């Protein structure tokens, strides 16, 4: 199985291809602040979950902006910010070969096993 080593930004179509034909996408200015992915823990005891992304000059600003953009109604108790360029993603084209092997392993699930009625609490 081959893993692609191309780095994808979150949601990026890929580095080779740049967006819509009549909407050129080469004009990203050098001054544009980097993109950050924001993860929010909604409640103590739960995982951080991807909330969206935003632009900020540095990590401190990313967290401050994330508070204003994603937690105006107490949606979170903790924020993670990761610069988007550091996110590596699996390639959707290979999702078949990547996940299929799990498909025929029904014995990994508890419902695979037939037990007599008398057995309780299992």
């Amino acid at each position, binding site marked *: 199985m081959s893993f692609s080593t191309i780095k*994808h930004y*979150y*949601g*990026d*179509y*890929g580095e080779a*291809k*740049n*967006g*819509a*034909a*009549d*909407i*050129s*996408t080469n*004009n*990203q*200015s050098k*001054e*544009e*602040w980097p*993109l950050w992915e924001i993860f929010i823990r909604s409640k103590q005891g739960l995982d951080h979950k991807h909330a*969206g*992304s*935003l*632009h900020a*000059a*540095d990590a401190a*600003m990313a967290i401050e902006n994330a508070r*204003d*953009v994603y937690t*105006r*109604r107490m949606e979170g108790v903790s924020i993670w910010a990761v610069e988007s360029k550091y996110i590596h*993603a699996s*390639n*959707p*084209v290979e999702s078949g070969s990547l996940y299929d092997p799990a498909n025929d392993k029904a014995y990994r699930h508890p419902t695979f096993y037939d037990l007599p009625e008398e057995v309780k609490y299992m």
Partner: protein
Amino acid sequence: MENIFQDKIDKEIRIEPKDWMPEKYRQTLIRQISQHAHSEIIGMLPEGNWITRAPSLKRKAILIAKVQDEAGHGLYLYSAAETLGISRDEMYDQLHTGKAKYSSIFNYPTLSWADMGVIGWLVDGAAIMNQVPLCRSSFGPYARAMVRVCKEESFHQRQGFEILYVLSKGTAAQRKMAQDAINRWWWPSIMMFGPKDDESPNSIQSMKWKIKRFSNDELRQKFIDVCAEQVKVLGFTLPDKDLKWNEERGHYDFGEINWDEFWQVIAGNGPCNKERLDARKKAWADGEWVRAAATAHAAKKSNKLKAA
């Protein structure tokens, strides 16, 4: 490829940014999402106009919260559009140069406090009508952004209706002010749903791709039916002498929309097009030194970190 793609759409499987998609689908989405984002951002201006003049501290706090929400909506949507490969700066540039459009409604002036009520009730109301089906849009990041937006919009509409409800119980002058605001905003609000179905050729493909779920006319009719009832609660009227319940259709009939006005406003000749764009461009230019300073500060800090 196209067939596999359409098949996924038909099966209600969401399309994610890195999945293959037809170029036209990408373009249509970039256009639609960025227009939507621009509308949220420009949409802050007519209401921002009344923040300093809100009649009480409570109303001021509410209005600030609403306008801040709209900024948030713009940001959710810009980042959804960015997943399609367009940069934020480029979208700003398209807005500032007039290449990109935003909702025609925001080119009308906000003349009285009652306009804040009407905007919440009708403009946010029309937006909600449009946006709720978009929560099931075929493009994942757009649908997720819309879920967030819709959760927040309901307060916008309710606070607007409440402003009008309070005015409707007020003095004769307050009732007159509210009715006047309704008269001015009603037609532009129902224009927000866009041109008639037979004049919006892009719609058919967008429906097939499930970028859009209902046609302009369907949504407009639904909105008119709802508002025609709600206005009775206020004891006001909608400025349409042809508005009448049609038993047979099960809908309200309504008068002819002035499409010439609609196209004029879209073309840039609305009452406030220039003012809105100038305000937006000024905000961007005035913020230039702040952006530069933040970039310089971040660079200095990361250099220090490397040196240490």
